[in-house]
């Protein structure tokens, strides 16, 4: 099954108290890619750089910022392919951000 991992912070100012080394996801990315679990993923720029697009009555409506204003922020995403939710949870729990922020595990619709 395919899952989207949303790598999130609990506060708008990122991960206070964590060092850059502690947040470095590169070893996780390498391990999970080697294992064949991680298909894709990236870091995303903060919400202040986001633009939200709507089309209503044929007109484009743009707003500055994310689609939902929350103090929790998305910092990145990964797409993984796992046997089941237990494996997806194991993979998510080993992401370095799980210790300082949180990781949402969201299943894809089955194709």
């Amino acid at each position, binding site marked *: 099954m395919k899952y989207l991992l949303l790598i999130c912070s609990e506060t708008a100012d990122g991960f206070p108290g964590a060092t850059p080394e502690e947040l470095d996801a590169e070893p996780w990315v390498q391990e999970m890619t080697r294992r064949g679990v991680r298909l894709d993923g990236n870091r995303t720029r903060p919400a202040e750089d986001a633009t939200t697009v709507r089309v209503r009555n044929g007109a484009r409506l743009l707003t500055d910022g994310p689609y939902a204003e929350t103090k929790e922020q998305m910092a990145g995403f990964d797409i993984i392919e*796992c*046997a*089941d*939710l*237990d494996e997806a949870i194991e993979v998510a729990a080993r992401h370095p951000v799980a210790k300082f922020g949180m990781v949402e*595990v969201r*299943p894809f619709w089955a194709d």
Partner: protein
Amino acid sequence: MRDAVKEAVAAAWSREWGRVVAAVIRQTGDWDLAEECAQDAFERALERWPRDGVPRSPGAWLTTTARNRALDRLRRAANENVKLRTAARLDPGPPPADQPGDRPDDDGLPDDRLRLIYTCCHPALPLPAQVALTLRTLTGLGTAEIARAFLVPENTMAQRLTRAKNKIRNAGIPFRVPPPDLLPDRTEAVLAIVYLLFNAGYAPGAAGPDQRRVTAEAIRLARLLAALLPGEPEAAGLLALMLLHDARAAARTDADGDLVPLAEQDRSRWDRRGIAEGTAVLDAALARRRPGPYQVQAAIAACHAQAEKAEATDWPQIALLYAELARMAPGPVVELNRAVAVAMADGPAAGLALADALAAAGELAGYHLLPATRADLLRRLGRDAEAAAAYREALALAPTEAERRFLAGRLADLR
């Protein structure tokens, strides 16, 4: 004859429902289909058993009937080009590797109930859904009965069950006994759910017939777990604890439904057979020399159960067991119970010191049994004014009418 057959079907319903559902889920991965086919199998039993006689092994008959029914329905659906992919799962190549609990039982069929209970108690499901799903799929209690037991509207409970089943399917929660690295935590969670079910029907003054059924089903589940997890003495410890508590149920409330404290209970109304069974199960668990919180709590319950009179209670032993429990599973409620035991073993002043420390720490703020305990100890020390204040504090916090009546009675006695 017909009545005897009806009874046989009813008995099979409570004994075999979970096994039949579990077998069809394992075979098809479809929880709703499993419930429907289990239902069909029992209906067929009502038709066939009066004519053909009750089969030698009703569980095997029902499981086979339900599985054939599921196969039938999926084949028909596949022919209509509907559930093609579900049907494809019926021919999955080699079956999954054997797991504990899969040994064929005396009916010659593997038992999938252990898989089912671990899946129902998966930590990715919300706790109320874990509780409801465990009851619905393993015990065959109806949605309406479960809703009444937990005091929620039936459609709320139905939605809770549907959402849980949808999440199991859509999020890919596996139908299995967890692998060794996850097993200890998951077993702890399963045992906690079963104990929670037991307590749902055991709260003093809160228990109606629906709650009593939940308590009875919890004991049945604990028996099943103890049998399916022979290497886990905590499963047997939980069964022993529940048997020993349940053996005292008849004496816990008086004719008006008021709570009778342990010291004042009519011990001739305790169920001796339940106590004997609970003690035997506990002794067998303790012999494995891997104690845990349920075994220690059962040992405490056994100390109480074995005392012929309240005065004969071995309080020093109980205080030691609470100290052991506080070491294994530290928490303010355990500490409060230890305070009570220490008060009985070493005098009310020693117990009060522990209870006052808890009150000062503030961890149990809002929990009526802390001021109720302090009130009792102050009363025994002759400090009536302080006792009355503590009784009033407890009275304001007590959650059930039976407990409020009990506390009000004690307060009135002081004056």
